[in-house]
């Protein structure tokens, strides 16, 4: 029942975000300058922002791209974490020690400068979509270190388990033991990491907007909509809609996904 409801919400969200681009008169960039910061109305159900742009249309357009990219980045980071942490925990010895040092280094370095350099390498006339894809790609490349440690700890804890010993005794290859026997037991950890990463990456995209990364105006993303909340005391309550939208999407995905189990 709950899963069905979640599917319906997600379908509605997806349909609305796709339709937003095709509705007559609906534009995420059109500025109604005589109606700035307008309260919700029939014409603008979520009101307008401080440039008079339709908040609802911007939110729906942002949903299209942000959700996809954030999920892809979270998946990418997770795969890297599994490769790095899994192999380190399983192989142990020098490789493990070297990988641990590498992970600690990844956690300590100021990767901000890599992101700034990436922005510099992009052509000035790069499309907002390109800029956004590059941003999430980099977040994915940089976001694996912390979960890799948790994966490594989990793999090490199963290393000497009975079922692993039995699998080896039966002649399983090491890679098969890792992939088919150990990693499935880490599903709770991997699921938690994936669902946590999506909103964390969206917020990171919002913060990176301060450095000129992320999509430029007027292209809406959840990140740059959330940046409006830097002044929470002066914005209208409708400006908090992206927080609700992100939370709703993540909650529904958790309900429908096999990784989320049946719980939120």
């Amino acid at each position, binding site marked *: 029942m709950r899963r069905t409801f979640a599917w319906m919400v997600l379908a509605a969200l997806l349909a609305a975000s796709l339709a937003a681009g095709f509705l007559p008169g609906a534009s995420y*960039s*059109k*500025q109604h*300058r005589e109606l*700035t910061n307008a309260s919700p109305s029939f014409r603008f159900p979520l009101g307008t922002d*401080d*440039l*008079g742009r339709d908040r609802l249309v911007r939110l729906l357009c942002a949903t299209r791209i942000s959700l996809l990219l954030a999920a892809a980045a979270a998946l990418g980071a997770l795969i890297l974490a599994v490769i790095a942490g899994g192999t380190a925990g399983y192989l142990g010895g020098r490789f493990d020690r070297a990988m641990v040092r590498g992970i600690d280094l990844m956690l300590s370095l100021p990767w901000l400068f890599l992101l*700034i350099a990436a*922005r*510099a390498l992009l052509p*000035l*006339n*790069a499309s907002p979509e390109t800029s956004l894809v590059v941003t999430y790609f980099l977040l994915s490349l940089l976001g694996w270190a912390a979960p890799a440690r948790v994966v490594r700890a989990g793999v090490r804890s199963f290393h000497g388990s009975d079922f692993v010993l039995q699998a080896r005794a039966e002649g399983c290859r090491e890679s098969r033991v890792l992939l088919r026997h150990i990693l499935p037991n880490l599903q709770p950890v991997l699921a938690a990491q994936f669902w946590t990463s999506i909103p964390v990456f969206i917020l990171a995209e919002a913060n990176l*907007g*301060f*450095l*000129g990364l992320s999509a*430029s*105006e*007027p292209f809406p993303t959840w990140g740059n909509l959330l940046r409006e909340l*830097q*002044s*929470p*005391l*002066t914005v209208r309550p409708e400006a908090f809609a992206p927080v609700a939208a992100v939370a709703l999407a993540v909650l529904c995905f958790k309900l429908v996904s096999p990784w989320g189990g049946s719980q939120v």
Partner: protein
Amino acid sequence: MNPRIGKLTYTPRTPCAAVTRVAALGLLFAAAALAQFGGELRFCLHGDPKTFDPLLAEDSNSEAVRYLTGGVLLRVNRVTQEFTPELATSWKVDQQGRRITFHLRHDVAFSDGAPFSAADVAYTMTRLMDPKLHSPVADPFRSSDDMPQIAVPSPDTVSITFGAPVSGLERLFDQVAILSARSPKAVLGPFAVADYKPGVEVLLSRNGNYWKKDASGRRLPYVDRIRLLIQENREIELVKFQRGEIDLINTLDPQDFERLSRQSPSSVADAGAGLESEMMWFNQAAKSPLPAYKKTWFASQPFRRAVSEAIHREDIARVVFKGHAKPSKGPISPANKFWFNSALQPHPYDLASALRRLEQAGFHRRDGVLYDRDGHAVEFSLATNAGNHSREQMAAMIQQDLEAIGIHVNLVTLDFPSLIERMTKTFQYEACLLGLTNLDLDPSGQMNVWLSSAANHQWNPSQPTPATAWEAEIDQLMRAQAGERSAARRKQLFDRVQQIVWEQEPFLYLVDKNSLMAFSPALHHTAPSSIQPQAYWNIDVMQKSTRLAGSR
């Protein structure tokens, strides 16, 4: 003492309102009666001062501390913009602006009690003009490579002779805080630095030996201490003000002004047009790596004029600055009473005229897109610094405005160091949107902007020879006004510079921002100004009534 000078936000028009006004005046006198001497005044700095050496102050936070602690020979009054004597009772400029002689005030002492004399002025100027100092206070004095000759004919007279005439010499001394030749910590200003906690606050205590007295002979300043809280976040600064934890906000954002004025109209002040403006320009640097056809566009005066006419400045002033800005009329704000060319008017918003100019310049529109004569679609990137919300809004509005004439603008926000690198070193940008603050009222302070050979000639810096006839004319006019003694003649010359800039639009001046600030009702004798430090320029006469101060 007039408690409010400048544009008020409330004007009563009905008898009922008049009664209210009388009642308010009564309250004002009652409040003035409650004003006390002593107490602590608090406001925020938006960062740590980088230095407490007044000769090296170049960021706004260091300049704030210098203003509050430094004694100067003469001061530019922030309201009247006239020179007022301070440590010097009189001065004379002769030898065509090469020499200035000051007659100093008697019976003035430093904060440590040591007497002030011409030797201290000589010491200060010697230190200031040290070629290794590289100070923004010193460089405007450097009219030649020679060190100035400093003569001290008597303890209360000092004469400084420069190698070549210095244009607008007197006004430069407004920024020169006189140092003690004996003690580095002694000051001549109303306050002295008592404590500094990095990242937290700067505490200034009253200078008991300050030379100024009020009409009744009472030694100024009235307050005992100033606590400068270091707070970068404007929202938190606003919350502190609303709670009564700070007494004034020196620079208020327009949204915060509107919010405060709804809650407490008497706490906000709009002093009218300030010296800050917003502008954009196209990269015309010969060494820039832009394609040749884009360089051709940007170098075309009709193109720049057309872009200017397509930008809706009134909308920017209304939407971004909530009406607390006016469309710019040129490089000088109307706040600069003497130097502003009043004959200039803002470029009108006129799409038809913009399209006509473009057509005459060989551009044509097809399916809503503008093309040049070679068939290139007109598209350029507009770079600005990331993190500045109002500038990002302006850029988005300019983007929509130019779409109406078929120009596609890509907005690029960059972190400030990356933007500076592109502007000053690599020239890898197409158009740039930034703000400008004219710290100096005198146009000679802008020599490094208008001279084509200068590094700050942003659209095409460091030219070996002027690239255009109009830039050559500006060079000639700026040099002429710098060498001219007559203020009227200088004004005439600089008016012509403003006229040329208005016609050629190397900078597209967008809006002049108003000076907005907030004062606690506990403060008295406040006088909002359009020149920094706009809220506390007369801090030595400000008083605070502790009964209305709120919690401490």
